[in-house]
């Protein structure tokens, strides 16, 4: 079982799958706040699902990055037609990702507030902006991941 889970294509699939879970959950949360939905329970579930998705994609992606990307993928990209895919997209992605978890935790704490508390404290818009930022960060990682994958594919041909 461990052998299957740590196979390179499976790791990439899990990394992407958990990232999609995280991004979609935060987009769901964003919709809940913008629509001023009254359910705290739904907001908390969406926030926690987003946080779990980001944590899992971090662990799986980190394992793949350290164990396989450095020794196997990076040399292919650097020798290919778009070495900047590593020096810009990969470098930026791996480091900017470290912003995500602290922001996601802050969002989960905000999700515990009721709609009336968010209004009376005057922080509803901040909650919206922060949730939009975490979703946008995730989508930007997706774009960078696509650039890295494409550069690897064309570097290997």
């Amino acid at each position, binding site marked *: 079982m461990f052998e299957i889970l740590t196979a390179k294509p499976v790791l990439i699939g899990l990394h992407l799958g958990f990232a999609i879970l995280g991004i979609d959950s935060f987009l769901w949360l964003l919709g809940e706040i913008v629509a001023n939905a009254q359910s705290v329970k739904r907001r908390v579930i969406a926030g926690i699902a987003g946080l779990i998705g980001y944590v899992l994609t971090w662990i799986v992606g980190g394992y793949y990055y350290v164990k396989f990307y450095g020794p196997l993928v990076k040399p292919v990209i650097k020798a290919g037609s778009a070495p900047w895919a590593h020096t810009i997209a990969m470098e930026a992605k791996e480091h900017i990702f470290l912003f995500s978890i*602290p922001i996601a935790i802050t969002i989960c704490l905000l999700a515990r507030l009721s709609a009336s508390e968010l209004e009376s*404290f005057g922080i509803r818009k901040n909650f919206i902006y922060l949730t939009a930022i975490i979703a946008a960060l995730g989508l930007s990682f997706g774009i960078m991941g696509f650039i890295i994958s494409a550069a690897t594919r064309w570097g290997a041909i």
Partner: protein
Amino acid sequence: MEKLKSIYASAYSATLTIASVVALTIGAELSAPFKNWLAGFTGHHWVTKSWISIIIFVLFFFVFRIAGKSVNELRTKRALLVLQTISILGFIAILGFYIYETFVV
């Protein structure tokens, strides 16, 4: 107010974590000995940076949680605004740095 205190502490702790990640990232790229020193702790500079980001966030969360006795709506709103700003600036700083390093240096 207990909920606000946690949000306030998390927002400022996240801000400090992001600022530290930006500083560590750019610092390590500009100084090979520093990057090697970071790698020496875990075998990989990025893994060390990941652990540092966790430690800073957890540590300062409790510091701000304990220190923030007079947290109110205004202070929490300011903490969230600072976090929003530093998130965007941090993104631009790291991406901009690597673009500069690749195409200009």
